[in-house]
């Protein structure tokens, strides 16, 4: 299962040795695909440490519910809290409250605007994802010698800021090459909306040269729509890096030629960092005695060439 390949209890160095017992509170939204992998990874990682106890609460359907769930979590006085908020800005107040109560907060993926609201933040690079996708597409099209290419984009849930960031990165990367998006549809991170939006996009662009789809999970639907429309004149780039997508890239029998990562393995890292914070340790490969404040993962581009190295990280 993906959880085992994405977790890793440090097996070398002093940090691996069991230390002081740490209770980590954890909260992330429920869902499928990438979000589900976040929770699974966190749980698996915690289970790998004998000195970590994980207390998790489901985040509920929205920020308000997550706030209420976190209140019950905080009242149980964990040593550290790791949380993937529905929305960083909406839960900023909770971060402040927890930090003031002396519980360090590790923000996972969706940043708090207020630096006082978290001890450490580990997140993917949404803007960078868009940039990687844009650069890859631009390079491919240039190599093919296409002029005035028609580029489509299938975004994720449009009301999320991360979607906006991804699209912004994509747009600006394309702009540096003098390209722009011809049509952008927003799906909802589910296979059926991916299929429906892709079907309409294909209809709107009878001829297309490249397509970026933000999320590999909804990408299953997007690929189905492409197959149903019998279209293959363009290249497609995915997002996040699901195992199915990486395997498809490796097999190279669909339009999907690459995917830009946004790995849920960050949840595992977050648990590791929380443990170190709880034990007052630093990261053993760094000189610093404490865990750093910000970690932003780079978004890598997986292509046929390097797919084999990433396939076991796919979720």
């Amino acid at each position: 299962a993906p959880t085992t390949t994405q977790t890793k209890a440090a097996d070398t160095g002093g940090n691996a040795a069991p230390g002081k017992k740490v209770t980590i509170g954890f909260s992330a939204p429920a869902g499928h695909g990438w979000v589900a992998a976040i929770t699974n990874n966190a749980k698996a990682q915690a289970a790998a440490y004998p000195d970590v106890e994980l207390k998790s609460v489901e985040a509920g359907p929205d920020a308000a519910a997550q706030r209420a769930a976190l209140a019950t979590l905080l009242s149980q006085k964990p040593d550290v809290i790791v949380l993937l908020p529905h929305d960083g800005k909406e839960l900023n107040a909770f971060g402040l409250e927890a930090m003031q109560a002396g519980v360090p907060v590790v923000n996972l993926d969706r940043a708090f605007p207020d630096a006082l609201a978290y001890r450490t933040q580990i997140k993917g690079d949404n803007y960078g994802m868009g940039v990687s996708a844009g650069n890859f597409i631009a390079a491919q099209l240039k190599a093919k010698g296409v002029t005035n290419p028609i580029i489509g984009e299938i975004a994720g849930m449009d009301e999320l800021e991360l979607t906006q960031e991804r699209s912004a990165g994509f747009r600006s990367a394309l702009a540096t090459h003098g390209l722009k998006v011809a049509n952008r549809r927003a799906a909802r991170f589910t296979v059926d909306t991916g299929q429906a939006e892709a079907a309409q996009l294909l209809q709107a662009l009878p001829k297309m040269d490249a397509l970026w789809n933000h999320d590999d999970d909804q990408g299953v639907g997007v690929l189905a729509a492409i197959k149903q429309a019998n279209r293959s004149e363009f290249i497609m780039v995915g997002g996040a890096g699901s195992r199915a997508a990486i395997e498809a890239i490796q097999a190279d029998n669909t339009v999907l030629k690459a995917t830009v990562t946004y790995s849920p393995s960050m949840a595992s890292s977050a648990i590791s960092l929380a443990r170190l914070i709880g034990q007052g340790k630093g990261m053993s490969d760094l000189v610093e005695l404490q865990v750093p404040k910000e970690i932003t993962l780079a978004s890598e581009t997986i292509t046929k060439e390097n797919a084999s190295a990433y396939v076991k990280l796919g979720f």
Partner: protein
Amino acid sequence: MKTAKSSPEPRTSFWRGDGSETVRRNLGLLGVLVVLIAIGVVTRPDLYSSSQWVGDNIFSILKLASVVGVVTVGMTFVIIGGGIDLSVGAIVALAGVWSTTLATQSFGAGGMIFTAITVGVGVGLVNGLLISYGRLVPFIATLAMLVAARGLAAEISNKQTQVSANTTINNIASAKLLGIPLLVYILAVVVAAGWVLLNRTTFGRRTVAVGGNPEAARLAGINVRLHTMLLYALSGLCGGIAAIMLTAQANSAQAAMANLYELDAIAAAIIGGTLLSGGRGTIIGSLLGVIIFATITNLFAINDLSAEAQNMVKGGIIVVAVLVQQFRFKSVTRFFARNSKITTTT
């Protein structure tokens, strides 16, 4: 002069009772549809100049409408029968997930279809039991079912997207017969069957009676509870069929799919003239409602409208569509009313 007075009789008799209002409503909806398509032609003449593309686009709209359309047929029955089914989207998801488990897929396409339909009907029967015999309010019973069925679907799928490896199923989405997509045929068959069932059978008559005045229906000897239960089973059946169609289209199923289809279906039925309080509605109206929504989506897609603009315009279009419908109706009656007044005073 006296004879002139009674002249409007024969003319107005054409408009009397008997569903002509319904026909007028549906004509109004058709008008809205034509306007939407005209807007498409005007805004994207380049696309509409290719007849090949136009044909493809019509089918793309109909394919988009097909899944919700099937669900809406069942929903229309439930609403006419005085109920509401908030669980249809969840039924689609549960049926889809259940029919794409590895175990089920090993039975092939037949096994998957059988599973989806059994799950759909089964969940519908539970809804029906809770409502008919447990006397739960339909809104609450099906809301509870929505929550529970999606939860069960997530449990079964372990929150993963389950890919359908069955090419027969997947081909349902791409297959064509005489140039027309199979999905469109399925929609047509379900709509036709729904129409016949509602308008030509005792089941349909009972549905109208049960929704229009349950007490009267009961006192006329109709088994209201049993019938109510069957209505939810019917809605579940439609959900099962839709699950297969959606799974085929997405080549996969997951617990979150068909999200809020219940709202789409209810909205389409109501736009189509179905009374939310029961006792009145038409299958054709519901179909037109679904197609109008799909056409709006298509219109936005081909014009690359952003989601927020899309939403604002969509709200406006819905309002205007209903107003247009009513305007037609009113202006006609007003016209006749005026007419008959003139004949009286002269």
